[in-house]
């Protein structure tokens, strides 16, 4: 199915999760997106007055795999070891939604035509919502890169934004995915090893605190995110329940010949309206709560990765020290050992400095994002509750009014 989305308009959910104070010399947005069979094609539009680019305004078409390539390029780049690399956007996943639409199509004869139409409408809205979300997540990834003073100057980034042709980045094949898994395992094992290493003392209280904090925080935010998802899904289920109820009330109403006729018909209308409101509550919870938690779960993982890299650098520094001592006692190859130790020291200090800055930024970003989303969540909940109260009250007045 072909779906277009005008991202960059009001339907910009996840962007709101991240506070971006970039300089305006480089503006990136996803101006259009098309969903075909199993691929989504994003149109990335850049506006920039930087001398590096050939034009001031230009667009390219990119697919998800190319975003991943860009992300991995940053991660593997030693220069950015001291920075929090913005988490990669998740793969567009329409599987569940597509399955549901298919099941609906196969049909359940006990469902009336109106019910069917409503359910189809709901599922299509769901599909569209997922689509908008994936666009927004890809967009926010690029925008964070553009806003970061160091990351925005990366060569690969420019290529990604400007190069008109396909980047010829194929998706990871099985070997590479497996390789990715193994790397992660090795990384965690390494981390465990380093922290257990004797003599490796954390010299800086700040980092000690950050490590304990991030470890716990990441687990708990992941938990909260999963549970928020469940709440949202239960709410959606509830909203969908109103469809058959409204339909049954409607048929009851049309059959009745007494005063209950109007009562049932009014009630059917009420439940239809309540359904829409409940649906909105569910989607707002999704956007303001679930998505925000999910984003910061990933971001906190990126922060953890940064800490790991710094810890690795510290371990390397410690090892270099030991090697230097050994070299000095043996009085052999002191010079290379010295220079190596220098390098490690410099690297470690560089990483520590930038990490400190990054982590402070992370915190302020997180706080302001939570603040914004929690306020919006509360305001939207209030709005919907007030609307529900109004329609309920109106129906009550109408019902009580008739003899």
């Amino acid at each position, binding site marked *: 199915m072909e779906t277009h989305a005008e991202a960059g308009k009001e339907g910009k959910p996840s962007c709101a999760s991240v506070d971006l104070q970039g300089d305006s010399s480089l503006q990136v947005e996803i101006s259009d997106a098309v969903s075909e069979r199993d691929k989504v094609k994003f149109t990335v539009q850049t506006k920039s007055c930087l001398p590096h680019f050939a034009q001031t305004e230009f667009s390219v078409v990119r697919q998800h795999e190319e975003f991943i390539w860009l992300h991995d390029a940053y991660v593997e780049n030693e220069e950015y070891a001291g920075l929090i690399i913005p988490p990669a956007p998740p793969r567009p996943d329409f599987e569940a939604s597509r399955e549901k639409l298919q099941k609906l199509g196969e049909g359940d004869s006990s469902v009336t035509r109106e019910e069917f139409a409503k359910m189809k409408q709901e599922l299509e809205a769901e599909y569209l919502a997922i689509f908008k979300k994936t666009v927004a997540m890809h967009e926010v990834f690029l925008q964070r890169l553009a806003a970061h003073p160091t990351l925005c100057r990366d060569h690969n980034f420019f290529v990604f934004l400007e190069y008109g042709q396909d980047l010829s980045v194929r998706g990871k094949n099985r070997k590479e995915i497996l390789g990715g898994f193994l790397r992660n395992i090795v990384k965690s094992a390494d981390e465990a090893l380093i922290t257990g290493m004797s003599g490796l003392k954390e010299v800086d209280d700040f980092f000690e605190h950050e490590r304990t904090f991030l470890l716990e925080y990441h687990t708990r935010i992941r938990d909260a995110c999963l549970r928020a998802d469940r709440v949202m899904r239960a709410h959606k289920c509830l909203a969908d329940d109103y469809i058959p109820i409204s339909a049954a009330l409607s048929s009851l109403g049309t059959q009745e010949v007494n005063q209950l006729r109007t009562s049932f018909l009014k009630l059917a209308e009420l439940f239809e309206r309540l359904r829409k409101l409940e649906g909105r509550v569910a989607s707002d919870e999704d956007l303001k709560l679930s998505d925000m938690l999910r984003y910061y779960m990933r971001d906190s993982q990126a922060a953890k990765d940064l800490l790991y890299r710094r810890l690795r650098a510290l371990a390397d520094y410690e090892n270099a020290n030991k090697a230097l001592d050994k070299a000095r006692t043996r009085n052999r190859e002191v010079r290379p050992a010295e220079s190596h130790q220098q390098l490690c020291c410099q690297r470690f200090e560089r990483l520590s400095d930038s990490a400190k800055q990054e982590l402070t930024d992370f915190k302020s970003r997180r706080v302001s994002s939570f603040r914004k989303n929690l306020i919006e969540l509360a305001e939207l909940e209030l709005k919907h509750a*007030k609307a529900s109260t109004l329609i309920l009250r109106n129906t009550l007045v109408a019902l009580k009014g008739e003899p």
Partner: protein
Amino acid sequence: MAAEREPPPLGDGKPTDFEDLEDGEDLFTSTVSTLESSPSSPEPTSLPAEDISANSNGPKPTEVVLDDDREDLFAEATEEVSLDSPEREPILSSEPSPAVTPVTPTTLIAPRIESKSMSAPVIFDRSREEIEEEANGDIFDIEIGVSDPEKVGDGMNAYMAYRVTTKTSLSMFSKSEFSVKRRFSDFLGLHSKLASKYLHVGYIVPPAPEKSIVGMTKVKVGKEDSSSTEFVEKRRAALERYLQRTVKHPTLLQDPDLRQFLESSELPRAVNTQALSGAGILRMVNKAADAVNKMTIKMNESDAWFEEKQQQFENLDQQLRKLHASVEALVCHRKELSANTAAFAKSAAMLGNSEDHTALSRALSQLAEVEEKIDQLHQEQAFADFYMFSELLSDYIRLIAAVKGVFDHRMKCWQKWEDAQITLLKKREAEAKMMVANKPDKIQQAKNEIREWEAKVQQGERDFEQISKTIRKEVGRFEKERVKDFKTVIIKYLESLVQTQQQLIKYWEAFLPEAKAIA
């Protein structure tokens, strides 16, 4: 003879007449709302029947629509009547003048006036009517409560005893407030007695709550968990509704068994109500036999009213079942939502604890508290969903089954009458044969038998007419009750939904400043 064999046809377009009447009723309804300045109240203050003047039609509709009772008053006086048509009453009470009501068919007036002149049965019905009016009108005052379930005994012989409290000003009871202890099988016993006395003559006896072997076993075994307390509460509420419906029925209220149930401190144990007892199995067999019989009875329905009503109830039954299934799904999902919200609240609290930014940490803890309160709200709402909406629907599904049963009894009654007529015919043929064969003693016997069967035919006819009459009245009363019941419950349910939303507003309004306070 004065009394016609069958209800005189109300003109050929009988069903359409009813429709006209319904529209007419609605017409009056709208005039009422414009005529009255105060909000229309459902319960009438006592309006004496003789108050209706025959002159203007203006004020009449006002009085007519408000007064439910007068329907019943005049219903008895007529053979056949559409009980949903209040317009007819002014016609009857005033000196009959056919030109009175313009809207509804005036051709219907004539037969009614005739039947008004029927003496004895009318008077009898009137006096019973008066009692009914007393029962139905504002003097009707009896309130039943079922409360305080307590477990008596231990192990598999244990049972729950419920307190049945009656508050009444009716003179037939010796006290104005009294209570007794009853167990579930007592209720079933009461229903079984009432059913055996009244069902086959056409009264809609409210069905008792259903047995539940699983539920009761859990309680007996002593599982003190939420599912068994829920089960007991569900049962208690169902028993209360059952008694309230039963006492609302004017005829059943007069029944001595009902009175004994409500009043006497000791009640003989009803053992035949056990599912697996001999009587229970006999009941099941009888039910099966009935079902088979029903399929084979081909009744000559001369009265379209019955056919129409049966179809109506059949449709209603189907629709209610569908709605009930959907509402049950709603209850289930709301409970799920509640559980998920509680889980989220906990993880939000944990997150708040980890958060090292103080203001955000506090806000997250507040969020956790809000979500916890919302979980409570969802639970209460699920409760309301169930006890108000879902149980109402399941009650009516079973009530409609009782209504269908009453229609079936009428069919059986007809069958009996029909069989008697066939037998009479056979006896007459036999007599004729005897006459030809000239066997004097056999002829005498044949004549005796003919007399016997003539009487049976007459009785069959009377019974059939009686049950038809009763059913019409009962269905009218049932429909009125149904309308009242549904409207009351729907309003209560919507009010519960409003309550939930208002609480939500309160909670989020309290949270908003906390979120804004994050610096």
